[in-house]
């Protein structure tokens, strides 16, 4: 909760810096504020406090996701802060507000807060996707993202309205309690509501068959904003999906799990096969994020005592690897603008540290041991096998095998293909970010208990 206040204050402060002439201290102030928010959120550990008449609840899972979001935000500011020169104050302000929305999305215990969190995050991202005003690709990405986003919001709201009519409550606990009781209205209406909300959230996490906006938006938006979308937006949407379906609709899991299975398998297949065909690096990562959304859905389908920890671990591993790869994409993009996989050619010689970080990130996304991506998949598949979803796991493993091809293509391009010989230098902040991200990817792979032990407590 204090994290939310700090983020909102940071956003307002950023808007004022232009008037007050404090632009120089904006970057350090943002870093300090984000670290302060992480500490403030950590202090609430174990208290399980409710705010706003129980509309938000900072339980331990919410705190872990908040910490992850703030960490991703911090890394994002370190990676991109220096490369944003135009409209710096607006960027900082809107992205702080977006982070605040993301925090609301992982802490909600009332559907009003879920809706507000999604909208605070989404509206900020519509603006950011179009932030390169004179570039056509950015315009197109912004409009597509906006149309798809508000369309799916309509579905979310219609679903919420139907569920409200059936259960008489917006509280997740109230809905869960009412589902057990006999209802005045037909059961079909409740199911329709759940499926509409499911559709909308699948839109938000870019799962099949509602993934078609993701490649265009990821490709068209500025590199820095794509990095934010692939990390923060993905964490918040997936965490909110899991939180809603485990807290409110957990008791009717049989009725929606089959639909979600089809969506998960479709996402894994379409995502991985689509990524194979792409030359543009950001477009490839967009399809890969569709595939990862499919893997994450496995945790929501299984909903047992392992799945919460497995999902958190998976999202953490995915976020670390995504941030690491975008750090390199943004750095290389500043030198060579076309953004194709071939633009990384010769990176092993041009900038060994960046090439090493990118290699670790790609290996982790592909799920190669001993990196954290391997254990993330292992825990997730293990949770699914406990519930006898063998065929789902088989599909996921098949998808992973396909994914190895395109992740290794990036590594091949960097380390084996010949490109320009011109060196790319790193700033001290970039060196720190790359080292921290690759260290965490390896550390969580060797000692997954560092994170997993937090969840059981």
């Amino acid at each position, binding site marked *: 909760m204090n994290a939310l206040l700090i983020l909102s204050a940071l956003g307002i402060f950023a808007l004022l810096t232009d008037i007050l002439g404090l632009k120089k201290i904006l970057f350090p102030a943002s870093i300090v504020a984000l670290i302060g928010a992480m500490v403030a959120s950590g202090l609430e550990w174990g208290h399980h406090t409710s705010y706003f008449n129980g509309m938000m609840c900072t339980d331990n899972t919410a705190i872990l996701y908040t910490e992850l979001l703030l960490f991703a935000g911090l890394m994002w500011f370190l990676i991109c802060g220096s490369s944003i020169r135009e409209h710096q104050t607006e960027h900082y302000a809107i992205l702080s507000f977006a982070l605040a929305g993301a925090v609301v999305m992982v802490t909600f215990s009332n559907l*009003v807060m879920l*809706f*507000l969190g999604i*909208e605070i995050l989404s*509206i900020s991202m*519509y*603006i950011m996707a*179009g932030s390169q*005003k*004179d570039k*056509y*690709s950015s*315009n*197109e*990405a*912004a*409009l*597509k993202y*906006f*149309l798809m986003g*508000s*369309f799916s*919001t*309509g579905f979310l*709201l*219609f679903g*919420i*309205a*139907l569920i*409200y*009519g059936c259960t*008489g*409550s*917006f509280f997740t606990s109230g809905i869960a309690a009412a589902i057990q009781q006999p209802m005045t*209205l037909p059961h079909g*209406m409740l199911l329709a509501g759940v499926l509409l909300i499911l559709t909308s959230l699948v839109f938000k996490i870019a799962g099949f068959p509602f993934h078609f906006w993701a*490649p*265009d938006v990821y*490709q*068209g938006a500025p590199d820095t904003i794509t990095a934010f979308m692939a990390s923060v937006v993905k964490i918040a949407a997936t965490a909110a999906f899991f939180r809603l379906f485990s807290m409110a609709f957990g008791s009717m899991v049989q009725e929606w799990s089959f639909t979600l299975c089809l969506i998960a398998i479709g996402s894994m297949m379409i995502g991985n096969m689509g990524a194979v065909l792409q*030359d*543009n690096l950001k477009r490839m990562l967009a399809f890969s994020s569709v595939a990862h959304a499919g893997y994450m859905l496995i945790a929501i389908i299984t909903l047992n005592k392992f799945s919460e920890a497995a999902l958190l671990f998976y999202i953490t591993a995915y976020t670390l690897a995504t941030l690491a790869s975008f750090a390199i994409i943004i750095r290389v993009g500043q030198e060579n603008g076309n953004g194709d996989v071939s633009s990384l050619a010769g990176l092993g010689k041009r900038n060994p540290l960046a090439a090493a970080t990118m290699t670790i990130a790609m290996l982790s996304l592909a799920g190669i041991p001993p990196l954290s991506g391997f254990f993330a998949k292992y825990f997730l598949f293990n949770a699914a096998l406990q519930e006898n979803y063998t065929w789902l796991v088989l599909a996921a493993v098949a998808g992973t095998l396909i994914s190895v091809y395109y992740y290794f293509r990036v590594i091949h391009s960097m380390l084996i293909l010949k490109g320009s010989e011109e060196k790319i230098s790193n700033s001290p902040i970039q060196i720190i970010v790359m080292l921290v991200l690759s260290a965490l990817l390896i550390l969580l792979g060797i000692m997954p208990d560092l994170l997993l032990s937090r969840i059981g407590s």
Partner: protein
Amino acid sequence: MSAIQVVPISYYVWLSAILFSIGVMGVLFRRNVIIVFMCIELMLNAVNLLMVAFSSMLNDAAGQIFVFFIMAVAAAEVAVGLAILVMIFRNTKSVDIDFLNKLKR
């Protein structure tokens, strides 16, 4: 019994479902972006109607409060959407959705 409660609840559900579907069809089939915006608004207003009807059926104010949130957020969303549209119009001199195909290759 107030006037809104005289009509059976199922009428409201069907009316908003139909309005919502008209909105969805409009978003899917119309090519002019401004009309697509209006269709999205129609979807949201169908939801508002449904919320108010349920709120009155359940004698619970929460649904009506939610409607205020939806209205406020919809206004913010349209403000951003129209800004994006103006930006596109300046670059392409068109508000046709079929222009949005430059990113595929």
